[in-house]
Each structure stands twice: as C-alpha cells, then as structure tokens.
C-alpha cells in the first residue's frame, strides 16, 4: 500500500507518470462507489458515472489547487457526475409506465432478507428527488458534516439541512410500514 500523500502522487502524475493515477483511484474508489451505487440505484449507471468522474478528475488534475485535499475535490466531481446521471436517468425512466405496486411488493416479498432490505431501501431512495437523495446519502451514509456537504455540492448548509429533513420524512413515509420501531 502506497502511503505517500495525495499531493506527492499528484505531482508524480503531472510529471508524466500516468500510471500513478491508479493509486489515487484505488484510494477513493470504495467510498465513491458506494455513493454512486446508492445515488443511482444501478451498478451500470454507477459504473458509467464513476468512469466519467475519474477521467474528468484526471484531465483536470492540474487544476486541483490544493492537492492535499484531493479527496474532497474528487468528491465534488463524483457528486456532480452522479447528480447529472440521476437527472438523466430520471428523464429516461419517465418514459416507462410507473408501477405503483412495485415498492409494496419489494417491501413485503423478503422482509427478513438483508439484501432484500437494502433493495427495498434503495427502492425508496429512488423515489426521492435527486437533491434530497444526494443530501441524505452524503449525510447519513457517507457521514459528512454539513460543511463538507456544502463544499461537495455548492449548496448552502441551511438548504442541505432542509433537504436531509425532507428526505428523512419521505423515507419514513415510504418505509414505515415495514421498518417498525
């Protein structure tokens, strides 16, 4: 495991060692993969968004003015890519008829199965507005502070708190029938 700081590896990449970029990718792939998969609800869409995000980050690497904060800078790109992909996917999905009973079936078919639980929660997440889903995931799944979320999204802290609140309210409406306290 390469323990050098991000800034050192970035300098190496910018000096011409393109292969060193893989080190940066491996450092952040897990966290950002989870976010992308949750945000988009699809491995294929997450794959596309992350390919685009990591490639964009590489192309813009010289513009990362604070290489010691590369992870936060990369997160901005990932969040933007996922948001764009989510909006695009939302438009695409609206071309298909909405199955109103899908959520109910998911909620009741496999109540004791962990994978099914994740699936049903994911299905509920998919029902949220994109910006609410994004705020909820960054806050409660990725564990970011509101200040970090603001840096990643460009949205003010107050607005983010409201988005998280609304996301929680909506999720509770969607999931309360199964996840009793």
């Amino acid at each position: 495991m390469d323990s050098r700081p991000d800034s050192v590896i970035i300098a190496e990449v910018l000096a011409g060692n393109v292969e060193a970029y893989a080190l940066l990718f491996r450092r952040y792939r897990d966290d950002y993969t989870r976010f992308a998969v949750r945000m988009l609800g699809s491995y294929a869409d997450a794959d596309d968004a992350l390919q685009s995000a990591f490639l964009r980050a590489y192309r813009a690497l010289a513009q990362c003015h604070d290489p010691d904060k590369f992870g936060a800078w990369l997160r901005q790109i990932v969040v933007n890519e996922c948001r764009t992909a989510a909006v695009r996917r939302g438009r695409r999905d609206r071309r298909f008829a909405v199955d109103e009973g899908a959520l109910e079936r998911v909620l009741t078919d496999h109540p004791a199965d962990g994978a099914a639980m994740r699936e049903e929660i994911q299905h509920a997440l998919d029902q949220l507005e994109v910006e609410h889903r994004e705020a909820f995931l960054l806050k409660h799944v990725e564990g970011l502070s509101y200040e970090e979320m603001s840096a990643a999204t460009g949205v003010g802290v107050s607005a983010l708190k409201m988005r998280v609140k609304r996301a929680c309210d909506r999720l509770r409406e969607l999931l309360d029938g199964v996840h009793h306290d």
Partner: protein
Amino acid sequence: MTDHDREAGRGSSGRSGGEGKGGAASEERFLARITEPLRAPERLDATFESRLMTAVRTAMPLPPTRRGWWRQAYMVRVTPLDGLAVAAGIAALVVLGSVLTRIEAPPATPPDLPVQHRAPAVAAVQPARDTVYVVRFVFVAPDAKRVALVGDFNNWDRTTTRLTPAGTTGVWTATVPLSAGRYQYAFIVDGTRWTADPTASITVKDDFGATTSLVTVGGSGAG
C-alpha cells in the same frame, strides 16, 4: 451518531411539532435501521480499473487554471501555395518583436476586426465546397524542449501534432490541413504546460475553467 445526525433527526421528527425526545429517539432508530444496510460496501466491476486507465492513457490533461510562466504563442494560417513564405515572414516578425518581451498581435491587424483578421492571421484559399485549408501554427517558446498542438481536430491528442523548430531559435511550427469549421486548440510545452494562444481573439473555457483558443477556418467567419 453525530450532532448533525441528531439535528437531522430532530428536524425529521418535527412533523407533529411536539414529539419531543421520544420522537427524536424514534427517528434515530429509524435512521439507524435504514442507513446500516446502505453503508455496506459496493464493488466495481473487475474491469473498471483497466478500462479507466486505458482511457486515462489516451486522455488529454487540462491545464492549470493559474498561468505560470507561459510562453507567448503565435499562430498563423496560410494557404499551401504561399504558406511557407508567409509563415516565415510572420515568424520573423514575431521573433523580432518579441525579443525579451511579450509578443503582440501582428501590427497590421486592427484590434477591433473580427477574429478571422486578428491573430492568428489568416490567408484563406479561394472558397470551394471541398476546400482543405492548410493552417500553419507558430509558437514561440525559447526554453521549450518540445511543443505539441492539441485541438478538437486531433482529439486533443498530444502525440498527434508535434511542432518542429523552425530554424529560428525558439520558434516552433506545425502545419495542419483543416476543412472549414470552427476549432478549439492549445499548445502543450514539454508535455505538461498548457497554454492557449494569447493572441487569439476568442477563447473558450470548458467545465474545468481551462482556456483554449478558438479559430474558424474557411467561410465568412474564418479566423
């Protein structure tokens, strides 16, 4: 659970306006139940890294947004017939005018004319439906070891169009056949330093704030 979590929990529990500690605790339990499964790790496709690195190896890095010691650049377009003579003349003027100073646009080019008449200077061939214009790029970089030209005409591939020393110290040139159209371009010095053409009238910024120059070849808007 963080303070922020608790804050969000209180906010979410506020629907009835008076649930108090019980409501907040209920909200926290609800959040704990639904977030735990979501925190499970996810894995990318096994080919993800190889696909990414393949793309990275052929991708064109963008320049820093802060300019450093940019070499001054100059580009001129000419026809195949008189290209060499015109380019040589302009390059000579550029070199003479830029000794130890920055290079300005050609003195014969009024600053308020459309881009096709400003730098880069243009010598267009007679318009024809299938005309291919030969565009000669001249770049002055006395300290450079190598200079590449990138643009949307070569997919921003730094290996496609290398400028060669023009015989005069610090002057690099490349000739590119282009059909009529509008193109973005920039120079890359020593493989890492990106510069737009400082004499171009039109520049374009992409998503990352990188500045590229814009040139129109052929047509009424040629420039």
